[in-house]
């Protein structure tokens, strides 16, 4: 299961703040792997014991040192806790309970800044996830915090200072996102803005630059901040983003990420007047398969050439490629740019991306994926463990889909894992390459445009790129705001279904006689959407069947599929 403790959307967790009861009732969902299970139990036991020890001490609230311990352990907790889709781990609930007071909130943030290790691939994500679930802070708490941080970066020399500043940048970005609106404006004081911009100096550690860039991007979610930042950037003698975007091809993976994010910002947020959009300059020669910009969850970032995926949001973001395979043996490779949680593999179109629920590739019956951070193969949200050491930056994941012998073989740097075949019980064709990424993760796909690093030997496989034949227009990945601008200008027909606005509204519900719905929507309903009366019958009204608008169909390929069956029923 993917990991996303996202924004609500956690209505199902509405009583999660009452820590004690949850603490004693929480059990991770049993997995099919006994070893994993014992590992989980162990980690939960540690937390329970810490809590009991503390409780027996005195009837005091959580002690600061306990919080430090819990915060420090959060990245490991994320690695081992597999049940995020349904409930938060007890230790996180306790941290959130502690953060309910102003003092507690500030303490938790400072503890994160001090304690989250830089080398842990889940460290930055841990900060984002912890913050996302903490009670909303008051403006005063936030102001107190930022004034106490002493934001001067002149002395990032010791490793301790590096940790501190990396974490401050992650934290500022997370706060900006969490508090978008007036509070985000309040956080972006001249000092904070100056700090983040001066962090973009190329002499700094690339991780400091990276998370400063991301923080600026998140502050810009509030439009007033966006204007402020944009103005400041333009007033600088040289736009730092233009310098940093050149790092996109740097051999160092951290610098590469900086390059990606700088380019993304320039294309999507802080648009620079004289600079053409990156999509206008992409070399598309022999580029035949891309990540599909129309088949991706909403926060995933895709590079202009369609081969790099990156996630900087708190949700679990997914994408499929543009080319479908139905038979034969296929292989593609992925370069691991960040070593955190990503689930990479294969999925059919039936697999659903529920980014806010933490579900992605490998979390349903129509997909299978490998996550080399936790060393788990995922199918139907069940993990199967393979021990071989976690993946590292620059590792190559090989994904082999054998539809002749019905097996899938993942390999890391050429070392194959045992074949798996679970997914074939539910689908034997219609597969796409796909991936889901946790916060701050990035990877690069090679569908065969470049030579493979570890082509499976002795297997006669095909590569995606040799068989796809897209039009030039299909290869263009436009910045999202351009797509949305065009979409919002499009016009809609008048006689369309009031629910989906896609199809002709020609169904009346009985007995209530409410109408204005299409067949597809009416069929999904049990109660009338207008009066909530139970629907006994759905009858077609003749008037509306009349004419079909051709121009509309071009934009709506499903239109015919849905209207044909009912017409056949009628005649």
């Amino acid at each position: 299961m993917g990991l996303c403790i996202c924004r609500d959307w956690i209505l199902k967790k509405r009583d999660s703040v009452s820590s004690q009861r949850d603490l004693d009732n929480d059990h991770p969902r049993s997995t099919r792997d006994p070893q994993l299970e014992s590992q989980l139990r162990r980690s939960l036991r540690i937390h329970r014991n810490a809590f009991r020890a503390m409780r027996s001490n005195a009837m005091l609230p959580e002690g600061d040192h306990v919080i430090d311990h819990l915060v420090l352990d959060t990245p490991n907790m994320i690695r081992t806790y597999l049940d995020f889709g349904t409930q938060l781990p007890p230790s996180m609930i306790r941290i959130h309970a502690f953060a309910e007071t102003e003092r507690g909130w500030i303490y938790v943030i400072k503890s994160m800044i001090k304690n989250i290790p830089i080398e842990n691939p889940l460290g930055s994500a841990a900060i984002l996830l912890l913050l996302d679930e903490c009670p909303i802070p008051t403006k005063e708490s936030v102001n107190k915090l930022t004034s106490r941080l002493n934001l001067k970066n002149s002395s990032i020399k010791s490793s301790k200072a590096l940790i501190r500043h990396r974490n401050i940048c992650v934290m500022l970005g997370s706060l900006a996102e969490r508090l978008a609106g007036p509070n985000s404006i309040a956080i972006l004081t001249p000092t904070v803005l100056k700090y983040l911009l001066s962090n973009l100096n190329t002499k700094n550690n690339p991780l400091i630059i990276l998370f400063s860039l991301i923080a600026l991007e998140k502050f810009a979610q509030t439009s007033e901040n966006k204007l402020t930042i944009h103005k400041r950037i333009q007033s600088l003698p040289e736009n730092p983003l233009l310098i940093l975007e050149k790092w996109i091809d740097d051999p160092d993976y951290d610098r590469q990420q900086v390059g990606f994010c700088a380019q993304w910002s320039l294309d999507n947020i802080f648009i620079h007047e004289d600079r053409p959009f990156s999509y206008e300059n992409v070399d598309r020669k022999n580029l035949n398969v891309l990540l599909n910009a129309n088949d991706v969850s909403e926060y995933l970032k895709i590079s202009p050439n369609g081969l790099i995926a990156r996630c900087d949001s708190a949700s679990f973001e997914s994408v499929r490629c543009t080319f479908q395979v139905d038979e034969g043996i296929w292989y593609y490779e992925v370069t691991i740019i960040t070593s955190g949680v990503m689930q990479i593999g294969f999925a059919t179109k039936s697999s659903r991306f529920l980014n806010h629920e933490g579900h992605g590739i490998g979390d349903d019956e129509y997909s299978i994926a490998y996550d080399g951070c936790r060393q788990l193969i995922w199918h139907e949200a069940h993990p199967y463990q393979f021990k071989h050491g976690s993946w590292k930056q620059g590792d190559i994941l090989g994904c082999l889909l054998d539809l002749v012998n019905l097996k899938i073989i993942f390999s890391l740097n050429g070392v194959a894992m045992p074949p798996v075949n679970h997914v074939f019980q539910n689908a034997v064709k219609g597969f796409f390459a796909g991936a889901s990424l946790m916060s701050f993760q990035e990877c690069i796909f090679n569908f065969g445009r470049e030579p493979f690093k570890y082509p499976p030997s002795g297997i006669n496989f095909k590569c995606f790129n040799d068989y796809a034949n897209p039009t030039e227009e299909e290869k263009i990945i436009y910045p999202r705001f351009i797509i949305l601008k065009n979409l919002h200008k499009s016009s809609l027909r008048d006689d369309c279904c009031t629910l989906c606005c896609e199809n002709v509204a020609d169904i009346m519900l009985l007995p209530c006689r409410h109408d204005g719905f299409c067949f597809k929507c009416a069929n999904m309903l049990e109660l009338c959407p207008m009066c909530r009366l139970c629907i006994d019958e759905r009858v077609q009204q003749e008037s509306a069947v009349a004419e079909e608008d051709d121009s509309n169909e071009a934009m709506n390929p499903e239109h015919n599929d849905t209207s044909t069956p009912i017409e056949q029923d009628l005649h």
Partner: protein
Amino acid sequence: MSALPRRIIKETQRLMAEPVPGISAVPDEHNARYFHVVVAGPEGSPFDGGVFKLELFLPEEYPMSAPKVRFMTKIYHPNIDKLGRICLDILKDKWSPALQIRTVLLSIQALLSAPNPDDPLANDVAEQWKVNETEAIKTARDWTRLYAMQ
């Protein structure tokens, strides 16, 4: 993004063309399913004069399932908890696909005018609201002044 349903396009166009009084809902420029919402505290309520920031997200299943809405400004209200989550029946079991972003936001505005301590999400607040309404309303006013005014 996956192809944007026309329903969302239509609602967005209408929200822009005919905004609801006292409410602003602007789609995110990168994510058409995410709306930045600002609701003015209704006149005569303890939230009067306050400006409340919310986020509204249309899930994949929308309109077959309800939008997800949450307050991002701190508010003292028996049906809104400290994470900003809202207890409102139409956002849960009483959702109907005939409801819209517009109607949801109107309902939230109405909830600010008429808190319902008998269906609480924030238990301590609801308790206070029932035991000592005058005091609760005063606290709500204080919070509005503290957190929801510029």
